[in-house]
């Protein structure tokens, strides 16, 4: 399939501190790639670089063959930030109608994405009155409006109940089957098994990347938690 996102030698400095150290990474197109790592490992910074809103110190990020943030990409890349970046003082419908106009999506897409993320019946509710999970789904819905080729989702399932999480992951795979490339971050290891590919980030470096099965084989473990622990031990030089 080839890489939809290519990162080469990416370095990012925030607040005088280097938070990403020369990252090299390829994200395959049409797959769900999980970006995992503890909080503070640089996941959000890396995602911001991919959508082109992060000032980078060095290196390159290309998305669909263009420089990240290029004007031509703005209609083809969807981004859900960690904070539900919607207008608290607008209703669900009003939020989506505005983002649809901005993205050049049709208004009929609004109804579609509302159903897609299971917010039917809440169209006239103010975003401020939604629960945390509903808020997150509204934010996801806004990122889906223009049917982007690349979808960058920062912790989309945080705080959601298990059923909803399962449904969302199924939906992510459905999108990938339709050709969308998804980069999804999480700090919960039990979501790793749901991804086609994994990238483990730790302290601003890529610890390892590959398929969940491949990682288990490499480390000779049966679950991903153990696989990651053994990798971290190896890096830190405290391994058995």
């Amino acid at each position, binding site marked *: 399939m080839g890489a939809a996102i290519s990162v080469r030698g990416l370095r990012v*400095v*925030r*607040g005088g501190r280097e938070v990403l150290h020369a990252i090299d990474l390829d994200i395959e197109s049409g797959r769900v790639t999980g970006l995992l790592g503890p909080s503070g490992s640089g996941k959000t910074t890396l995602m911001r670089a991919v*959508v*082109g*809103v*992060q*000032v980078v110190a060095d290196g390159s990020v290309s998305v669909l063959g263009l420089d990240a*943030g290029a*004007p031509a990409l*703005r*209609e083809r*890349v969807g*981004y859900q*930030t960690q*904070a*539900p*970046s*919607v*207008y*608290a*003082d*607008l*209703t669900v419908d*009003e939020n989506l109608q*505005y*983002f649809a*106009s*901005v*993205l*050049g999506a049709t208004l009929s897409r609004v109804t579609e994405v509302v159903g897609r993320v299971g917010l039917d019946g809440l169209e006239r509710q*103010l975003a401020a009155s939604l629960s945390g999970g509903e808020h997150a789904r509204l934010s996801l819905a*806004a990122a889906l409006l223009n049917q982007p080729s690349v979808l960058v989702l920062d912790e989309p399932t945080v705080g959601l109940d298990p059923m909803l999480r399962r449904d969302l992951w199924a939906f992510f795979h459905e999108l990938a089957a339709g050709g969308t490339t998804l980069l999804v971050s999480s700090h919960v290891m039990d979501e790793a098994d749901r991804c086609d590919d994994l990238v483990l980030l730790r302290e601003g470096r890529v610890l390892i990347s590959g398929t969940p099965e491949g990682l288990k084989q490499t480390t000779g473990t049966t679950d991903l938690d153990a696989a990651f622990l053994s990798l971290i031990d190896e890096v830190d030089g405290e391994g058995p």
Partner: protein
Amino acid sequence: MSLHRTRATAHRVLRQLRHDPRTIALLLAVPCVLQVLVRALFADRPSVFQSLGVPLLGLFPFVAMFIVTSITMLRERTSGTLERLMTTPLARGDLLVGYALAFALVAAAQATLVSALSFGLLGLDSGHRAVSVIALAIANAILGMSLGLFASAFARTEFQAVQFMPAFVLPQILLCGLIVPRDEMAEWLRVISAVMPLTYAYDALARLASPDELTAQFWVDVAIVVGVTIVALLLGAVTLRRRTP
């Protein structure tokens, strides 16, 4: 820039306001109440009310839009909506002009209401220039909006944004000539007031309030107000960055 996205932004800002009826009520009622107070204060001296009333009509929207815009823009920055918009095809000009259109409409409603009250019930003499006063009030509102937009870039919290009102606006009101005529000020105060945009906004309104024919100086004042608005909007555009650290 796109007309479609600019209009959508103006529509969105107005919808946000519509969900906040208390703010709308305050925006409309507070200037009316203040104007009634000024009228009562100078009940025995109608000439003073005549010289204060018209400039105040034009200054209320300036102050109100400065505050409303700096807070709305700060929210846009802190809630992440600005970051989301920066990943979309929305141009910075769409956002700024969208805001300007929405607040111009609010300012028009505000200025029309206070003008109707002042010229109708409070006995202020419009000298057949009511429409010009309202037009200038709208121009001042957009000036306040563009300065508020620019100021919001320097505020990290809503507390700071609110403090920018006294910091940016009060000195201009003190020195614009409303309280003490400019030619009675100490030289250094006059120099400071000469670089403040509100001085020209006040001067234009004061000229409308007087029965004299409008001179070229009136149009110079208007040109300065419009010019500063454009410069402040451009500076505001510079503070809206797609990439942030």
